[in-house]
């Protein structure tokens, strides 16, 4: 029975989670906290920057998901056609899927920083005369560079799903609609979109949840105030003052709770999508 062998990572996972949970309830014998309370949750939520971090995280996750959906769907529409060197194109299209986030973040930083490559191009085109005139997209209040990284990485993910659905639908519905006089836009909106949407809904929830809890890219490209929630939690965790550790854990648990609720929604949406696909 391989259960036991697989149990080890599961045990580590549970151990880490349980410990984090316990500390979030102020059970932290190491600094003399020995009783359970929900204080840390209250403290961390009222902590300066928490709400702003939450707002920023929701904003970044939402915009990422939205932009990714749009771009993914639109590119899929093009990719389903018989194109020159389609295989090569698909290969390039999927490149972002395997690229490590850190490298993408580094590249994006060098690209869209105020003195980055794009800014220099604009300078040579005469559009700007100094870096300060280029918008601040890295280490900024809205996490634009972060969004760019995630969109860049996730578009192929959505695109491939949309592509698979479009290919399985085939051209029949569209041709039928066109022959009845519908415009391309109408076909898109009333035929293709509703057919693809059910498959995309669960995927977009995944993207939202993933971006919500993500950490490395915001750590590199984000501002420290306000930061995304996971960075906020991490900074509390590495704070020299050990007494704030429970707050760090509370913040982490909060993030986990948000993501888990989203995943629950996902499972219901996925079940619904499968049901719709079968009909």
């Amino acid at each position, binding site marked *: 029975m391989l259960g036991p062998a*697989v149990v080890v990572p599961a045990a580590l*996972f*549970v151990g880490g989670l349980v410990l984090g949970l316990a500390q979030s309830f102020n059970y932290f014998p190491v600094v003399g906290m020995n009783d359970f309370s929900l204080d840390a949750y209250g403290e961390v939520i009222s902590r300066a920057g928490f709400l702003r971090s939450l707002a920023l995280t929701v904003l970044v996750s939402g915009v990422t998901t939205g932009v990714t959906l749009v771009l993914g769907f639109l590119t899929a529409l093009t990719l389903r056609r018989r194109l020159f060197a389609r295989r090569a194109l*698909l290969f390039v299209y999927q490149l972002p899927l395997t690229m490590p986030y850190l490298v993408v973040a580094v*590249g994006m930083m060098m690209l869209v920083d105020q003195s980055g490559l794009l800014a220099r191009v604009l300078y040579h085109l005469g559009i700007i005369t100094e870096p300060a005139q280029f918008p601040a997209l890295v280490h900024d209040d809205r996490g634009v560079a972060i969004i760019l990284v995630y969109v860049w990485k996730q578009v192929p993910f959505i695109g491939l799903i949309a592509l698979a659905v479009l290919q399985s639908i085939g051209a029949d519905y569209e041709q039928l609609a066109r022959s009845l006089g519908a415009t391309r836009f109408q076909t898109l909106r009333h035929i293709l979109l509703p057919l693809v949407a059910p498959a995309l809904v669960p995927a977009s929830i995944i993207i939202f949840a993933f971006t919500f809890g993500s*950490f490395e890219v915001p750590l590199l490209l984000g501002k420290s105030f306000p930061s995304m929630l*996971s960075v906020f939690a*991490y900074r509390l965790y590495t704070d020299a003052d050990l007494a704030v550790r429970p707050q760090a854990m509370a913040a*982490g648990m909060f993030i986990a709770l948000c*993501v888990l609720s989203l995943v629950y929604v996902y499972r219901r949406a996925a079940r619904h999508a499968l049901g719709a696909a079968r009909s």
Partner: protein
Amino acid sequence: MTGERMLHRAVVAGILVAVVLPFLPIGLWSVGHRWFFPQLFPAELSVRGWSYLVSPQSRVLPALLNSVVIAAVVTLINVVLGVPAGRVLGTARFGMRGGIELLILAPLIVPGIAVIMGIQVVFIRIGLADTRAGVILAHLLPTLPYMILVMKGVFANYDHNYEQQARSLGARPGQVFAYVTLPSVFPGVVVGALFVFLVSWSQYVLTLMVGGGRVTTLPVLLFSFAGSGDHALTAVLSLVFVLPAVAVLAASARYLTGRSAALSGLGGR
């Protein structure tokens, strides 16, 4: 209609440009010397970054070795454990299956930050903090669930009749496995293994927390370089770091385009 075709051509061009764009500055910075705004191209070139890369005194080569060894071992463990586990979950039906599945897949769902902060102490307690073995063990958390998931999908689509027929024809279990099972599930194993390698290769926070600064891997080093503001070194390291990802994509291109057993295994049954 030409208008539409131009639109599609534009989209294709857009895709190509977008994918290549982040790598342009990295490539340029890897050889740039005194490259300040607003120069479009480096005025001077230098191999400082590259010579640092291969210098025996720099941290790069040890980090590279660590990354390779850790990712390879993690992948191996994943295959050895994940294939049978996926088989069990994909084929058998038993009472607590749903519960166990959830437990195994939980690390994929729960955001890392929540678990990683607590896990550092766990590793200290079991004495594996700051060790390579500890990091390898830790890397199983984000990888094993995925491997099992992929293998589960593969085995769910797998027709056991072939095995039964082979056995009814007198083949021993070992032969059945080698000649019937393995070739059928091989594509799924490859996809899973490649992906798992990449996940381990790209791990940053987990390695940092569990390795405690003692175990330096490429992403840890890259993050450190990126923060130091030395673009040339960062760019060089990024290029090295990205190579396996490109290699993996090329190798798995056969399995990833279009519909494949692995992809449908991801449908989440």
